[in-house]
């Protein structure tokens, strides 16, 4: 009995002494910290599991306060996210889903090759040597983007052009950073019309280096104001456009994903044939329409002339009289 009592006393005493000591030192060594860190730490699961990529929940809490844009806590889920957002005073915003787009269709057949590059395995290395195409803005196809893509969404067509699978793309933007020629950009997932060229060269150069290069001719901008031309390069800023818009481009640079997927437009000869057929049809129709319009105009003009002549004639007649 006594022994147990002593044991309890000793344990209690030791604990008390240490506790007081700690309390004292925590005052002495107090470090000012953002109080929100503690608050956030409270609402976190507290498992210190490291699943978020940080060493422990406190680090995660600090990241929340610091960056303002924390990755989700995989353990806590939505509940924790909203709680954290509440503490930070932010609301989880609805951001438009973005996907990556490789703005190049310069396959082997279309883009002029520049002397073979030896000992090059990566785009970054190829870029040091000036690239493997005459066009310095196009895709070089060594797959630096494929290597960084966490979603396996990018494939390389014929070792020449990378194509992003918009369904697989999670919109992380790593490929945009990895691409030395800046040919990849993030576009809204809902956008259906794309300009598949990145060439900022003047028209004369673009023409010699690629058959599907944008020469900055502004024809597209005339048919749809959502096309913006900058540095000899058109870009589409709207969400969608009339399905006939791609047909106006003289170099077949514009793709409408409702008609052809980007992949088909780059890879498939068949799709190109279909496109050309449709384009010819459209042009023919346009030509006929124009012709008809011109004829109508001519007829109208003729009629007007006739009428005028008649009127004049009658006037003359009147004068004569």
């Amino acid at each position, binding site marked *: 009995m006594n022994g147990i009592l002593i044991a309890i006393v000793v344990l209690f005493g030791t604990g008390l002494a240490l506790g007081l000591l700690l309390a004292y030192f925590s005052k002495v060594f107090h470090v000012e910290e953002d109080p929100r860190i503690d608050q956030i730490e409270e609402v976190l699961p507290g498992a210190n599991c490291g699943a978020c990529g940080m060493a422990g929940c406190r680090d995660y809490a600090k990241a929340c306060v610091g960056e303002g844009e924390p990755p989700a806590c995989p353990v806590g889920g939505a509940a924790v996210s909203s709680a954290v957002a509440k503490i930070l005073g932010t609301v989880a915003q609805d951001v438009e889903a973005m996907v990556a787009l490789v703005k190049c269709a310069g396959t082997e057949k279309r883009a002029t090759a520049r*002397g*073979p*590059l030896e*000992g*090059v395995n990566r785009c970054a290395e190829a870029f040091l*040597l000036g690239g493997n195409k005459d066009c310095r803005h196009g895709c070089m196809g060594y797959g630096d983007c494929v290597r960084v893509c966490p979603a396996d969404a990018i494939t390389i067509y014929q070792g020449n052009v990378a194509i992003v699978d918009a369904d697989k793309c999670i919109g992380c933007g790593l490929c945009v950073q990895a691409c030395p020629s800046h040919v990849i950009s993030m576009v809204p997932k809902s956008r259906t019309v794309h300009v598949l060229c990145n060439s900022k060269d003047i028209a004369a150069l673009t023409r010699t280096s690629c058959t599907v290069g944008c020469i900055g001719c502004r024809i597209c901008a005339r048919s749809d104001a959502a096309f913006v031309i900058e540095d000899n390069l058109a870009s589409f800023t709207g969400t969608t456009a009339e399905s006939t818009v791609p047909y106006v481009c003289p170099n077949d640079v514009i793709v409408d994903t409702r008609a052809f997927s980007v992949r088909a437009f780059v890879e498939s000869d068949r799709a190109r044939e279909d496109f050309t057929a449709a384009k010819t049809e459209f042009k023919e129709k346009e030509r006929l329409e124009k012709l008809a319009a011109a004829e109508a105009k001519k007829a109208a003009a003729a009629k007007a002339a006739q009428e005028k002549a008649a009127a004049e004639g009658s006037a003359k007649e009147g004068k004569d009289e």
Partner: protein
Amino acid sequence: MENRTFAVANSPHVHDNSSIQKIMWNVFLALIPATFVSVYAFGFQAARVIAVSTIAAVVFEYIALLFMKRDWRACFDGSAAVTGLLLGLTLPSNISTGIILIGSFVAIIIAKQVFGGLGHNPFNPALTARVFLLIAFPGPLTTWPLPRGLENASKFMGVATTKVADAVTTATPLGAIKQNAVQAMPNININDLVFGLQTPGSIGEISALALLLGGIWLLYKKIITWHIPVAVIASVGFVALITWRIDPKHYADPFFHFFAGGLFIGAFFMATDYVTAPIFSTGKLIYGAGVGLLTIIIRLWGGYPEGISFAILIMNAVTPLLDRWTVPKPFGFQKVRSKS
């Protein structure tokens, strides 16, 4: 004028035609004299051990490369063969084939390929395997057959010889010293240690002369620099000299320590292994001195008669730190303005 197109590559556009293969096969070549001496001294058994360990190493390398889906041709770059040969040279000649295979496996798979293959192993593969075997099979690894022509000696260097299976075994000179202190000394002839035909020991370490020849070849071909071997041998000699001067009854003289045991094979072939040795000259000197000191400490006061394998392995672990702390100042380096 029609323009011609050319292949584009990054500078520099010339190369000195050196290659890993050339380096490795030169090391292999440098080990040939020692191999010949040992085959002469121990006969067929030595040839068996060396052949098994070398071939097994190459085969294991091949298997590992296949498994990892890497270019299998890399197994002929000579590095696996050198590892296997070095391992074989550090084993006694009467060791069983099974143990050699285990050794080759440890060397190539555990100590090398697990870390990504040539260039990435933090520890010398052959030595890792040898130390592993020494600790896993202490018996077979410490029974040393007598060279040919000495089988009938009942006592060797003051140590009894034992008949095991069909070979007569005894302690190595270092083992004898360990057991009998310097009483054994008069029986050990430095000449024997140098030429190696009359002493027991692991296959490759018996002839200091043959190893020295190989070492000089490597120095001549500029495959190794003088720093590590000199530092190892000098530091061993230094401690040995001091202890010998203090108490010649207990401690052997420096020459004995130079020529007995694996000091030369260690100093010239194992400690200088590119992958596991420091890369800067200062680091090399410190590393060599460390190897030498640890070797002699283990030899004189430790539990094992020979310490160079342990010493090199331990210093292998220090190598990354030495590489970090002995970086020379770059060209035109100025002391960084302190206030910034």
